[in-house]
């Protein structure tokens, strides 16, 4: 195909290019999927039957835990093992300006020159939960493009970044030594979303303490048939990274071969669908509420303390439903 150029993209060209390994077509297809444009929707519809081949790995943990550095080290190790790697790295959008500085590439500079790696930075664009709304779609495009492994680095802003499980088959939780309080405050949700854990920066003091604390937390978490291994890594030097890849691969083998594989896929499909539908519903409901003028009026009555917020919200929902019935 001819590479895309200014404003003349078609879904067919992009899909054809993605499947043929054209990196420029891949990059532009991702742009459309991220924007949720009509072309992006068509690209997803056409490539989705070709997905499901890639091993998907989520990397989550607090900001500064070393996620980007670790993704770089993991990608290098995967390359050594002859596998190609697609990466989606998500950073937060400013809630004020909606702008973002996407700096994850800084930690993976050497990978830029490697034709077996494709790295895309994304801003969260207002989505909570650690991903951006389009992230799962972007993972699908990289999957269809034929990358053996697709890694997703989450925002790393909060303790409830459980959405990574919507996009990844295996999620790695990155913790740090000396983050005793941090480990303590890790909510059950984040613990339960991870199938592999690593104490990164284990060159620093306190790595073994952090490891013990994680183990103790795991002991009281709600777990299924898989017991998450806890490793130690030094992402900066690559120490422990081959073992981490081995652990990720073991979990991958577990979910793809286990008797629960079909169930797992259904559970992930449910999470993906609900997350996207919820976001769409939220947007459309607000549009409908604004159209009827009900939002404005109810806000006024709550502000004047004539109505309580709970009953006002119910009234708003009724107004939205009535508006939808009219449309």
């Amino acid at each position, binding site marked *: 195909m001819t590479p895309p150029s200014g404003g003349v993209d078609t879904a067919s060209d992009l899909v054809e290019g993605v499947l043929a390994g054209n990196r420029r077509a891949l990059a532009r297809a991702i742009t459309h999927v991220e924007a949720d444009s009509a072309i992006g929707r068509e690209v997803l519809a056409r490539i989705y039957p070709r997905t499901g081949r890639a091993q998907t790995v989520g990397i989550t943990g607090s900001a500064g835990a070393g996620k980007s550095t670790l993704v770089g080290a993991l990608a290098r190790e995967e390359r050594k093992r002859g596998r190609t790697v697609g990466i989606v790295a998500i950073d937060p959008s400013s809630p004020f*300006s909606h702008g973002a500085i996407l700096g994850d*590439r800084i930690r993976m500079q050497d990978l830029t020159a490697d034709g077996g790696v494709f790295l895309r930075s994304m801003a969260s664009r207002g989505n909570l939960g650690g991903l951006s709304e389009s992230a799962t779609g972007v993972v699908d495009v990289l999957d269809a493009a034929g990358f053996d492994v697709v890694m997703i680095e989450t925002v790393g802003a909060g303790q409830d970044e459980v959405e990574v499980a919507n996009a990844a088959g295996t999620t790695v939780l990155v913790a740090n030594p000396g983050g005793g309080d941090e480990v303590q405050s890790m909510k059950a949700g984040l613990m339960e979303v991870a199938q592999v854990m690593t104490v990164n920066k284990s060159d620093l003091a306190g790595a073994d303490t952090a490891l013990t604390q994680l183990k103790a937390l795991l002991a009281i978490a709600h777990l299924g048939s898989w017991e998450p291994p806890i490793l130690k890594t030094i992402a900066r030097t690559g120490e422990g990274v081959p073992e981490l890849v081995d652990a990720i691969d073991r979990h991958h083998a577990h979910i793809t071969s286990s008797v629960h594989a079909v169930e797992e896929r259904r559970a992930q499909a449910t999470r993906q669908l609900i997350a996207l539908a919820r976001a769409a519903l939220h947007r459309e409901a607000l549009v409908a509420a604004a159209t009827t003028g009900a939002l404005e009026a109810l806000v006024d009555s709550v502000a004047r303390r004539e109505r309580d917020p709970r009953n006002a919200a119910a009234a708003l929902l009724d107004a939205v439903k009535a508006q939808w019935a009219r449309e």
Partner: protein
Amino acid sequence: MTQERPIRVLIAKPGLDGHDRGAKVVARALRDAGMEVIYTGIRQTPQMIAEAALQEDVQVVGLSILSGAHLELFPRVVEELRSRGVDDVLLFAGGIIPQDDIPAVNKIGFKGVFGPGTDTNDIIAFVREHAPVRA
């Protein structure tokens, strides 16, 4: 609630130049103006810059250089972009680029050149006016 799609910009520092204050000032200003800025850090080869521009599918590529090597490095960045088929990005630059060199820099495709003391509002306005539309 459909929100305008943010303009995506790559800010890069080619060569061995370690002066990164200006690049960071510009990156932050564009971020605060609602744009998504990919910052790749210092010491980028022309290949790395072009490859990042391709993978990120940015609309705008801004080079920051204070080392004096612009006439050597800028054409190589343009060449690397072209060889990858990245032909629809807005190119612009800033840093220490002598007045006498600006025509040559313009000629190879850099639409704007912004030197020391530039008001970042002028840079924001320039990007908003010239960035090509994507999806």
